[in-house]
């Protein structure tokens, strides 16, 4: 049976060592590109550091004070949580235009139940969280079972959830005093710890906890590896034994849950429950994700990038405001940030490994 062809006889003498190479001297730029390729969160971290220093110089000590920096974290906390949810979806090569609508709808549900209908606050919050998961499941099932593109699905559910929210709330806000009287727990995440001049709200801590937990799930569990594989190449993931539909639905449900929790936290942040708030939350969450270096093509990038992306946006807004720059130029700057972030992402991905 062993009929090795003549030219194969010499194989017995072949080398058996693991390959080792003398490393050619790479140019500085090549090395930077390589490091960034392996550590996708470096870019947003560096940009965050640089922008902090830049605004310190431009806007002075008032900007770089413990008080102002902690204020920035408070300002980004809600969008940060939405960005965490959005990252999950974008890593699967999807997009979720309904994150902010889910968040507001769930905060309205929590408020209606607890404040207007006298349901105990913990139950109202639980109902909101379950509602968030149901809304996510609806997105996920439409995408996997009816095979609608995520963009279209969530464009539709955005309107649906927003309309439900207006209906349930009667387009009325629930006032701060009424919440204090009936369901103080809803404002829990508005509480804060004072550290020197800094004011760290529970909402900020919650945001960080959410990011750490999701990072762990994405990087240290099989589920997380499957999420990346799905975003990378859906068909290959299916063929190599991943239950892609089930995993995708779970991703949308988890994102919905995170949005609902963000809805709870938003009550503490805003003080009242307004059906009209965070109308731009969808796009702001996508902005944070993109600036954080997570690829819109899916499968690449770390969720921590979205946290830094949200912080970068917050730092720019605060810094430019303190430097006395008109709001319209703040918007202008964020626009350029998005474009530059995507351009850098493309450059890094061209790395010749």
């Amino acid at each position: 049976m062993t009929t090795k062809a003549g030219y194969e006889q010499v194989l017995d003498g072949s080398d058996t060592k693991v390959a080792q190479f003398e490393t050619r001297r790479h140019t500085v730029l090549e090395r930077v590109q390589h490091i960034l390729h392996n550590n996708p969160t470096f870019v947003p971290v560096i940009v965050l550091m640089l922008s902090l220093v830049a605004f310190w110089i431009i806007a002075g000590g008032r900007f770089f004070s413990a008080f102002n920096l902690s204020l920035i974290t408070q300002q980004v906390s809600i969008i940060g949580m939405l960005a965490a949810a959005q990252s999950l979806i974008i890593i699967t090569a999807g997009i979720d235009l309904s994150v902010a609508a889910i968040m507001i709808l769930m905060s309205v549900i929590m408020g209606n139940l607890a404040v207007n209908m006298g349901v105990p606050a913990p139950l109202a919050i639980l109902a909101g969280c379950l509602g968030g998961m149901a809304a996510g499941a609806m997105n996920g099932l439409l995408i996997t079972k009816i095979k609608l593109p995520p963009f279209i699905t969530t464009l539709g559910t955005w309107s649906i959830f927003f309309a439900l929210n207006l209906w349930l709330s009667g387009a009325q806000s629930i006032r701060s005093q009424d919440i204090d009287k009936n369901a103080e727990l809803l404002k829990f995440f508005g509480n804060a710890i004072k550290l020197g001049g800094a004011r760290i709200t529970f909402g900020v801590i919650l945001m960080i906890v959410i990011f750490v937990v999701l990072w762990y799930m994405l990087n240290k569990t099989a589920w997380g590896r499957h999420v990346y594989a799905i975003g990378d190449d859906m068909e290959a993931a299916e063929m190599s034994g991943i239950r892609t539909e089930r995993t995708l639905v779970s991703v949308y449900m988890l994102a919905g849950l995170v949005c609902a929790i963000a809805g709870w936290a938003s009550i503490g942040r805003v003080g009242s429950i307004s059906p009209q708030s965070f109308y731009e939350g969808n796009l702001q969450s996508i902005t944070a994700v993109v600036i954080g270096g997570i690829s819109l093509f899916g499968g690449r990038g770390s969720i921590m990038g979205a946290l830094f992306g949200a912080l970068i946006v917050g730092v720019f807004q605060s810094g430019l405001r303190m430097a006395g720059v008109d709001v319209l130029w703040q918007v202008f700057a964020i626009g350029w940030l998005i474009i530059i972030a995507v351009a850098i992402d493309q450059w890094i991905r061209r790395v010749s490994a």
Partner: protein
Amino acid sequence: MTPVVSAKGIVKRYGHVTAIDHSDFELLPGEILAVIGDNGAGKSSIVKAICGATTPDEGEILIEGKPVKFSSPIEAREMGIEIVYQNLALSPALSIADNMFTGREIRKPGFLGKFLRMLDKPAMETFAREKLTELGLMTVQSIKQPVETLSGGQRQGVAVARAAAFASKFIIMDEPTAALGVKESRKVLELIKDVRARGIPIILISHNMPHVFEVADRIHIHRLGKRLCIIDPKDYTMSDAVAFMTGAKEPPAQDAA
């Protein structure tokens, strides 16, 4: 002897294209069955139907005598059936170790694994390195390397190693040596024989006649969407086989059915 796989009258159409046309298929215990045929003859299509990657429109498939209807490759995999796809089915951005273990990851022992579901990356990496070394894929420098940074042949090696490591019933290899070098092809052939020696039968699709004639116990010749005949490599020459599969010569009166 019950065949490991026995399929009858399989039909698969893609729109107007008939990929499989009332084809039969049979794999016997302990054998290496080579499947040869022209490009587009339907070789990949029929093995995909057997392993659940596609659902045939008609026909029945028996695994060890029991009828099965796989709706996904996961179900086939749970029975110990592994396949190396022609396009490999690897996730480019994930590491070699992650790819080898997709869908059957090892978790850390104790609390970390049970409740926090933490992966045991070192264990998976050691295992993956071992399997690649067995295949002689020494040129892979780091097991944590994303698959997209590997050469085409190295990727094929990863896919072959994955199938060989986990199969317990049978393995399908769809052109496993197409992109491999001389040394690596030789290793894959040795591996195929090792797997047979472990008692696990193999379906090998290949266009490489010397390889086919070296390892195969029987050769299934596929033509125009169906099985034309089965030949014993000891009774025929490579040119006979090529003549049958291209239609240059009438196939022998069938004895295998």
